[in-house]
Structures are given as C-alpha cells and as structure tokens.
C-alpha cells in the first residue's frame, strides 16, 4: 500500500473547523428530526391502537408508505417535488425565501421517515400491555383517554426506551443522507477533506471516531434513563 500518512492534517485549519462544523450540523439535523419523529411517531403509534377502524387504517398506511420507500428517494421528493405540489404562493416562498432550505428539508424528511419507525415501537409497546390491565383501569372508572394517559403510555414508554434509543442512533446515522442535498454534515466534511488533501484515511478515521464517540455517549445516557425509568420487577430491572 502506497500512502503518505499525515495525521496532522486533521488539526490544521480549515480542516479541523470543517470537522467540527460537520459534527455540529449532524447533531442539529439529528436532534431536530428526532423531535418531529418522536412527536409525530407517538401520535401515529397511538392512533394505530384506537378502536376506530378508519383511523387505525390511515395510521397504518402512513407507516407502510414511509417504511417502504428508501429514505434517499423520500429526501429527493421533499426537496425537488414537494415545493412544486404546494399551493403556488407557499411553493414560491419555500423555493425562494425559506431560510436554509437544505437543512429544513433534511429535518422534515428524516423526521417524517423516522416517525413511521417510532410509531411501530410505540404501537408495539402499547400492545404488549395485557388487556385486563387496561380493563383494571376502566373498572375503576377511568375513561379510555385516561387509560392512555395514566396506564398505557406511562408503561409503554418505559418499555420502549431501548428500542427508541436505537431509533435515535439510526436517525443520527441517517442524518448523513442530508449531504445528498448539500448539507455539509460530518460525512460530507470528511469527504471534502479527502477531496482537498487526498488524506482520505485520516479524514474518514476522524469522522468514524466522532460517530463512535457520540454513539457511545448516547448509549450511556440512555442506559441511565432506562435504569431511572424502568418499572420495578420488569425484565432486567434490579
């Protein structure tokens, strides 16, 4: 292998700055998209468990639609196609005046996509609760809505902390797709450093290490949250 090692390139400007700016955008995309995914996904997951058949079907349709189309295709549709489908004035505003359109589009696309996955976790969390436990809530006079608020959701969110953690990590990794519409996140910056310096090894190693560090931090944090919120007596609890 013929390769000129030069690790110092990582600590030179502008490349060091590029890496950190990339990391910053990765986190900004991931966190904002997670807010959308969590809120929208929770709503859709809950709707998949309600008695009304039409509502359940619509929620299921959302999940199937967003799960069965590659994220990259969805991203391009949000970026290139959706502005054309909007009412004319709104479309024009999106195309001309919306601040930071690449970032906003990436966040919306990633949020809507991950919402379908979060919805599945929320639904399965709710459905693992025994029917008679919900009946016990109804029997003391709670309304169906109250059984969601005080029994089903508090229990299911505690159960699904681990799968939600891995969904967050997925969103964090998937934020790299934003580079295809021009968001200079971490992977894009590593690629750019490679293009400028031909030090691909160093650049990609730096990005890899940064992804690993963030993943590790998230895993540790979520383990802490899991321990704090875990229902006593459930599997794996102390």
């Amino acid at each position, binding site marked *: 292998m013929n390769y000129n090692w030069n690790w110092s390139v990582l600590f030179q400007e502008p490349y060091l700055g590029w890496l950190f700016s990339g990391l910053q955008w990765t986190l900004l995309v991931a966190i904002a998209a997670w807010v959308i995914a969590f809120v929208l996904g929770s709503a859709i997951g809950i709707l998949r468990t309600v008695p009304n058949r039409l509502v359940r079907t619509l929620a299921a349709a959302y999940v199937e639609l967003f799960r069965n189309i590659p994220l990259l295709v969805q991203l391009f549709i949000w970026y290139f196609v959706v502005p054309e489908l909007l009412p004319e004035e709104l479309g024009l505003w999106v195309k001309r005046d919306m601040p930071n359109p690449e970032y906003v589009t990436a966040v919306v696309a990633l949020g809507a996509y991950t919402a379908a996955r979060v919805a599945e976790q929320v639904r399965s969390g709710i459905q693992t609760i025994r029917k008679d436990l919900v009946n016990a809530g109804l029997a003391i006079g709670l309304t169906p809505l109250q059984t969601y608020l005080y029994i089903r959701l508090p229990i299911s969110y505690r159960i699904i902390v681990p799968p939600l953690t891995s969904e967050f990590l997925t969103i964090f990794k998937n934020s790299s797709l934003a580079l295809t519409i021009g968001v200079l996140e971490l992977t894009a910056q590593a690629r750019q450093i490679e293009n400028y310096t031909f030090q691909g090894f160093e650049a990609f190693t730096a*990005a890899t290490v940064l992804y690993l560090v963030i993943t590790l931090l998230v895993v540790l944090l979520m383990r802490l949250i899991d321990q704090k919120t875990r229902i006593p007596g459930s599997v794996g609890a102390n």
Partner: protein
Amino acid sequence: MSDFDFQVIIESLPFLFDGLLISFQLTLLALLAGLAWGTILAVMRIWGPAPLRWFSAIYVNIFRSIPLILVIFWFYFLVPLLIGRPVGNFTSALIAFSLFEAAYYAEIMRAGLNSVSRGQVYAGLAIGLSPRQNLQYVILPQAFRNMIPVLLTQAIILFQDTSLVYVVALSDFMTSASTVAKVEGRLAEMYLFAALVYFVICFSGSMLVKHLQKKKVA
C-alpha cells in the same frame, strides 16, 4: 401537476430496468456475503475464545455505529488503495455493503441462536446428542426458523439501502432515475416513479414477512 409527463417514464424504462437489475444484483450478492460473514461473526461471539469474541463484538459495534454512506466512502477510497489499482465502483460498493450488512446479520443470528431455550439445549444433550449434533439437529433449525422473518426484513432494508450508492454514482435504479430526472428536467415524474417502484417491491416483501410470521404463530 397538470403537466405530468408519463412519456418520459415510458421512454426511459429500459434504462431504468438496467438500473433495477444492478440494485437487485447488489442486494443479492451483499445479502449472501453478509449472511455468511455475519454467521461466522455470531458463532465467534457466542462460542469463540476470548480474542475472537472481542474481535466480533468490536467489529459489530463499530459498523453499527457509523452511517452506511461513510462506509461506502471508506471502501470507495480504501479498496483501490489496498489492491493497488482502480476497481469499479460496483466492487467497492459490494464490499462496503457486505461488510456493513454482516454486522447487522451477526446480531440477528446471535439473537436467533440465543432464542432457543436452555431447556431445548438440555433436552438434546439428555437424549445423548453430541454438542455438535445438538447444534445441527436441535438448535440451528429452531434458531433459523425464528430468524427468517427478521432476516427477510433486513433484506428489504438492504434493498432500500442500495439506493445510497448514488453517492458514488453507481448506476443502480435510484441513480438511473436521478440521471433521467436531471437530463430531462423531469424531477417530479422520475422521483415519484422511483418511489412507486421501490414501494411496490418493498411492500410486497413486507407482506410476505407478515404472512410468514402468521404461519409461525399458527
């Protein structure tokens, strides 16, 4: 959208079909290679001596912590360097996907092997099977049956993920659709059509998975 142009889709069908074949090819080859390597990693992790266990654990966790696009870039850059001459982007993408998918398949395998209850393991040994026979006749068949739906789901994810070779301009289905979109200036038509094709394929696949899961329960 009154000026939706079906003609451009029809005219580009042969070109798109070639792209779709590349997507399938990449999916199938990466699936087989990933499955093989993933099984080895899982076996190392469960039954291997300490250094192999560590290697497997570190390998799996690293690949699961970084984005696929970064892996694609890594091997696009690394493979020619290691081999010493340029290889096509298909080869480098295939290597990237195989090594990446193996990490996910290893975890599926491990969960599948662990899903066979201890009681079953004892029962096999108790009727006098050797550990190897026990693995072959008792553990693996049950583990594999438990795993099939998850493996298929992962295959659907892999098929969707192959669209990411767009970043190294390998002309799979997605890249082909995107090329036509840009050349013809027909973005809406091509991307919506691409979405439709992916949806039909992946949705059929996930219906199949659901069907298999139901059969398993029954």
